[in-house]
């Protein structure tokens, strides 16, 4: 463990921690609103540690979606991490097994982006740096969840203070974050229409799998394009 490099990582991760903080608190408040206890919310932030998928998880749980579909959706939303860990493999090969375990656990969007950037510049990716950068985002994420959950439990009617509009708008922001990707518009159009049709004719929660499957099948069937798909970050807030 090298102290200097650890603190360099902490300094690098600090602004990202600030940017992610409102989302941690928002998750805590919405989790309680969706039937979680404060401890459940904190437990989820500490173990899953992937903001967007945590929001998806509580939304589906609150709608009484079958558990396997909740887990599958969390997996699907987090699937981009497969690209991340493949992409940074060359930089973390020298970590020990335990260090790799911890490093992949902490591999959120900004951690990936910063590791990639640092590696490309030829700077050393030491475990000390990686851990400093990761912990300064991870620990406040848990604390902010706790604060948000305590706040959420004090709210009587979430509609009166407009909490119910936040999740759909948040997910809309995430979707827009992918607009540079290949065939974004046809995928979103097909998934959107199929999910609304699924909601109308089959009912919640099936609209999620129906809509998602429609967009994914479309992407697989469309003729391949020349544009190389890049592992673009879903969003920058943990």
């Amino acid at each position, binding site marked *: 463990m090298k102290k200097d490099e650890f603190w360099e990582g902490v300094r690098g991760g600090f602004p990202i921690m600030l940017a992610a903080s409102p989302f941690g608190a928002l998750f805590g408040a919405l989790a309680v609103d969706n039937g979680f206890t404060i401890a459940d919310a904190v437990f989820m932030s500490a173990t899953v540690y992937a903001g967007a998928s945590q929001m998806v998880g509580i939304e589906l749980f609150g709608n009484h979606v079958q*558990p396997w579909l*909740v887990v599958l959706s969390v997996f699907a939303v987090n699937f981009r991490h497969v690209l991340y860990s493949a992409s940074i493999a060359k930089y973390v090969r020298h970590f020990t097994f335990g260090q790799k375990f911890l490093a992949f656990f902490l591999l959120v969007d900004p951690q990936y982006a910063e590791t990639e950037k640092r590696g490309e510049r030829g700077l050393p990716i030491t475990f000390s740096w990686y851990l400093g950068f990761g912990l300064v985002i991870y620990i406040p994420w848990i604390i902010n969840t706790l604060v948000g959950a305590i706040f959420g439990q004090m709210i009587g009617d979430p509609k009166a203070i407009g909490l119910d509009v*936040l999740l759909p708008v948040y997910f809309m922001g995430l979707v827009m974050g992918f607009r540079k*990707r290949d065939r*974004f518009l046809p995928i979103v159009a097909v998934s959107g229409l199929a999910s609304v049709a699924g*909601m109308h004719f089959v009912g919640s929660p099936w609209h999620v799998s*129906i809509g998602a499957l429609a967009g*994914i099948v479309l992407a697989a069937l469309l003729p391949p394009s020349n544009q190389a798909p890049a592992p673009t970050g879903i969003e920058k807030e943990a």
Partner: protein
Amino acid sequence: MDPQHLNLIYLIIAAAVATFLTRVGGYILITQMKQIPPRLEAALNAVPAAVLTTLVAPAFVYGGLDVTIAMFIAFAIALGLNLSTLRMLVIGWVVVMVIRHLVM
């Protein structure tokens, strides 16, 4: 702990394991596989937008007029000004609060 709450704990643990698998999966795959088939890659690439859209579209259609208006305004402004998700959230929230407390 009642069984229903215990189920939630199991659910969170399963979600955590699933998430960890995605974070370690690429590292394992890259050392095993030479190349991902292009159609599989296209399908994988479409997963997040396809899944997330199913959480947006029904809320837009069935969420009530106030939510629909708030989502539309937040979308239009965020797209036009290239705003961050956080700013977009604030806009959507302000619009829905204005409609609920000042208009309706």
